[in-house]
């Protein structure tokens, strides 16, 4: 837009009056950004402020009242449950991250470097992304017939003679929680990694082979370093989705495990909003700290 004010002579045929009516570029930009700013202001910034305020409020059994007290935070930090639940949250995040990274990288690598025609690349890529546009809850429910006590996994293992009795830890356990996370979120690794890989200059890989590198050496010393931005973006997605989750953990653990999100949703269920808000503030700070650290390794705006 700056170009048009710099070169008025280029459109000398245009009436001068019209040029005079043109708004400064910054004004136009503000108008264009206003709807976005309005939505995010009303439904993101205000809610966060509200949560921070309410986290200092007090609560009775059935109502909440304005106050300025640190009781909620004191209780939160003095309870051993808090530390256990935060530990659990990090545990889920780390294991899920490792699994999604391994699977996501391999899938993206196959798509980007082993599938040769662009049409096939797009088709197979879409095949990976379609589940993302369907319901997460249905995708969780759909593990029941697979992992249940009399589910497919158990009956298959029994018929093969691997086990004599059904495994109890398949469904409603940490295992099923992480399995569901991997199932739901691997896509968030595949997409950014694939995107970065597609932009790697193929001549660099040829150069690596010409210089005598093996396939593994090329992978480790050329492709992985060049894919790092994609890996970082995928990491941000997966870590934040897992850390903020409450529904997968509740459903897939059969309410037997807890993470921070569940702690918040339990408090909400008991109408203890101030306590939920305090936990939410701590969770938000934790997530933002993690993101802050990860963003040091990648410039998101450059990678789009």
């Amino acid at each position, binding site marked *: 837009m700056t170009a048009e004010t710099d070169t008025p002579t280029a459109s000398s045929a245009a009436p001068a009056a019209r040029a005079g009516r043109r708004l400064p570029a910054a004004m136009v930009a503000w108008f264009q950004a206003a709807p976005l*700013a309005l939505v995010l202001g009303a*439904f993101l910034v205000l809610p966060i402020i509200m949560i921070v305020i*309410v986290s200092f409020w007090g609560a009775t059994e059935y109502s909440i009242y304005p106050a300025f007290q640190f009781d909620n935070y004191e209780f939160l930090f003095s309870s051993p449950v808090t530390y256990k639940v935060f530990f659990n949250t990090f545990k889920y995040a780390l294991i899920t991250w490792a699994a999604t990274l391994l699977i996501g990288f391999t899938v993206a690598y196959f798509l980007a470097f082993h599938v040769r025609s662009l049409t096939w690349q797009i088709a197979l890529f879409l095949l990976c992304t379609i589940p993302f546009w369907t*319901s997460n809850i249905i995708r969780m429910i759909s593990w029941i017939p697979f992992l249940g006590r009399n589910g497919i996994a158990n009956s298959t293992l029994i018929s093969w003679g691997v086990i004599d009795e059904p495994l109890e830890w398949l469904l409603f356990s940490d295992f099923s929680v992480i399995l569901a996370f991997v199932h739901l979120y691997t896509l968030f690794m595949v997409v950014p990694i694939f995107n970065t890989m597609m932009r790697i200059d193929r001549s660099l890989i040829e150069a690596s082979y010409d210089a005598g590198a093996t396939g593994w050496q090329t992978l480790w010393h050329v492709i992985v370093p060049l894919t790092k931005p994609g890996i970082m973006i995928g990491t941000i997605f997966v870590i934040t989705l897992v850390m903020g989750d409450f529904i997968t953990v509740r459903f897939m653990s059969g309410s037997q495990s807890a993470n921070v999100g569940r702690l918040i949703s339990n408090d909400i269920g008991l109408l203890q909003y101030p306590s939920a808000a305090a936990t939410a503030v701590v969770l938000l700070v934790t997530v933002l700290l993690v993101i802050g650290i990860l963003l040091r390794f990648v410039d998101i705006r450059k990678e*789009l």
Partner: protein
Amino acid sequence: MERRPRSFYILAAFFALFILFLYGPTITIAILSFQGPQGGLTFPMQGTSLHWFRDLFQEQAVGDIWGSFRRSFVLGLMVMVTTVVVSVSGGLAFRKRFAGSAVLFYLIITSLVIPSILVSLGVGLIFSQAGLKVHWASSGFGSQLTWTLPFGLLIMFAVFNRFDKSFEEAARDQGATAWQTIRHVVLPIIAPSLIGVALFGFTLSYDEFARTLLTAGSYNTLPLEIFGMTTNVTTPVIFALGTLTTAFSLIVIGAFLLTVWLMGRRRARQGSDAGKGMV
């Protein structure tokens, strides 16, 4: 064509397993939803029937499925249109330098990474403290936008980063106004990406759960209704519902992808529309 290395076959097998992992469970419940009337939530099938689908159409059996579907559909359309308009407008804004753009950019990222339950809780608190009733079309609508807009904007950023500015310069040199340039040059070029944004807007809203949980009010959207069912329904009727709503999602996705493909083909066939006139 040169021979494929052995690693290709290993990776192809891995990829096939991954696809099986992605789709297997959904296919399983699709099969089980045709379970006979005596059948349970797992194999073996006790005969096949449409019993559980019929159950869905008897409203009293499982709550207000159709009402919630209607609400989710309307909400999905509202979110879709708003997401496209706001994303395009925001995307255009970010091509210029303006005060506060960095802050706005980080707000978009925050909107994406913030735990969904915070949006739900915060919006719910604001409405209750302001004495307003939460409703899916007001508070629910706004909360879902905080989830769909970041995706829309990230797509727009990606599109405009690759946009060839000489098209606009050419239009301007021909005497087009700023609005004419956007309307007749920019929008047609980015149209396929807008279909993509619309796809994200609709499907993410249609399936959204966490941000709608405390903001939908007394009338549930479909995902909320389904979640309610998971706690008290222990028959394959829930699989039938899952199968139907997944089928619906797949039809919607298919329609969007088909549109993009047809647009691409038409464009390839016609090539440039130079000299054909625009009015």
